[in-house]
């Protein structure tokens, strides 16, 4: 049975109400196509995990899909605040949002522990900070070696579902990433189910021509969705740039509840799918975002026969 499905099918099958979901990707490769479809399908009570909630989770929180947020940096990168999340945290609008807060390294450590089935991951952080007083999941372990040092630990994070946007995979879901690698590998291995969303599906032989670039094996991939420009307004290295005016626009309009609703109506609810979204965005914008070419120089793996 093929894993290739539409975004609508993938969200219907793998993202029911109440799940713990991680849509990862640091600054780039953020799958807005998936987030918008989750909003459209009216999901509720999700626990959303991400180092940097970014516009994506700001929009999802504004739309009321989230019960809880697990994160380490709540900013609109290079722009400012995430106003919808701030409204939920500061004023309970549209409804209260539980938060569970870590540092970046703490979130990464949680994914590593989750992916490697470790009971905890140790890291040099948290000492002297007020964070452990407000997050009882931050604990300490004493080293059994000579110095007997006490070190911070974080617990594993195993999302029910991870959604990973990537430039390309093969029909089986063997997925290659380049550019910023973030924590996608760790989040995907930690998750119960993985949806991979790609700019393009390529022949197996393309993947096999460079096995060192394959970070996610088909083994852990449950669904493959092909969604070109599916990470807009974030970016995909070599495919398109970040749409900064779009980020700035949300930064402005999201300050106001009414305008936030209008934005969601305009760009999510009244748009049935990503193809329509791209049409609305317009070819001029898409062209503006396409970068020039900077190809990697090939390496020889050698024929060993």
């Amino acid at each position, binding site marked *: 049975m093929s894993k290739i499905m539409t975004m609508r099918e993938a969200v219907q099958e793998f993202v029911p109400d109440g799940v713990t979901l991680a849509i990862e990707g640091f600054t780039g490769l953020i799958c807005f196509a998936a987030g918008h479809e989750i909003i459209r399908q009216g999901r509720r009570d999700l626990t959303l995990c991400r180092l940097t909630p970014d516009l994506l989770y700001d929009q999802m929180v504004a739309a009321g899909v989230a019960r809880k947020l697990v994160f380490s940096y709540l900013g609109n990168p290079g722009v400012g605040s995430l106003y919808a999340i701030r409204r939920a945290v500061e004023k309970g609008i549209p409804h209260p949002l539980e938060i569970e807060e870590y540092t970046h390294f703490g979130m990464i450590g949680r994914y590593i522990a989750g992916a490697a089935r470790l009971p905890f991951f140790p890291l040099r952080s948290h000492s002297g900070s007020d964070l452990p007083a407000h997050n009882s999941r931050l604990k300490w372990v004493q080293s059994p070696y000579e110095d007997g040092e006490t070190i911070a630990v974080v617990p594993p994070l195993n999302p029910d579902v991870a959604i990973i946007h990537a430039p390309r995979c093969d029909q089986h879901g063997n997925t290659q990433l380049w550019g910023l690698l973030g924590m996608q590998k760790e989040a995907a291995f930690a998750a119960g189910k993985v949806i991979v969303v790609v700019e393009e599906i390529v022949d197996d032989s393309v993947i096999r021509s460079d*096995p060192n670039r394959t970070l996610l094996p088909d083994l852990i991939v449950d669904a493959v969705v092909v969604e070109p420009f599916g990470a807009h307004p974030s970016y995909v290295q070599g495919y398109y740039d970040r749409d900064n005016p779009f980020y700035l626009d949300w930064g402005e309009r999201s300050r106001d509840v009414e305008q936030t609703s209008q934005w969601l109506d305009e760009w999510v609810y009244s748009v049935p799918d990503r193809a329509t979204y791209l049409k609305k965005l317009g070819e001029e914008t898409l062209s503006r975002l396409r970068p020039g070419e900077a190809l990697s120089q090939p390496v020889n793996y050698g024929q060993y026969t």
Partner: protein
Amino acid sequence: MSKYTASEMMIAVAARHLAGARTAFVGVGIPNIACNLAIRTGNPALALIYESGVYGAQPARLPLSIGDPTLVTGAVSVMPMADLFMYYLQGGLVDVAMLGAAQIDRFGNLNSTIIGADYNHPKTRLPGSGGACEISINARRILNITRLGARTFVEKVDFLTSPGFLAGRAERDRMGMPGEGPEAVITDKAVLDFDPHSGEMRLAALYPGVSVEEVQAGVGWPLLVAPALGEVEPPTAEELRIMRDELDPAGLYRG
């Protein structure tokens, strides 16, 4: 029907044990050929994982070691060994692993470290664990591939390198290991399995023409016999053809 060697029988039996598996953690030699036979005889989706960091290899020649460059070229994914041990093996993605050993005991514990009583002054120094200890703990199912012999099948291993059922299934269970422990020992004369309660090794099925006594002669303790002692089907003509013509034409491992 052509005659076949004990190795060919072992390869065929191992391949049949891989029928339902999604992934196999393999070394070179018999395990490698058994996996490739399984792929060609009913489990085409079986994916091979090598501890060297290779997933989904498609070797253009018979690999001579688990780090052979032919395993890399054309593979699906090649990664740091840390990723392989952390996310594939410990992460629970290995369905079956095949292991050999210099000694195996009554409860499927393996020794690949030393022969002799004193670790610091061994009679024979063997290679050691490599990844075998963590494979035995984390892989879902373990198949042992070992020829019978009273020096190999010993009541108690000189050194416990890789845990089977330890002093019995209850002890392994108490330790909460992710893997289920040894499932079968594929020998040159019979297939052995483990009592579902005690975890003690027992004779499960004889190869054609082999007697219980012959098997017992190669085991250093009184071997239990399973209630329903079976007989293993010999390699089929098709299995032999694939092994001989396609997988190991030079007979490096079938001998």
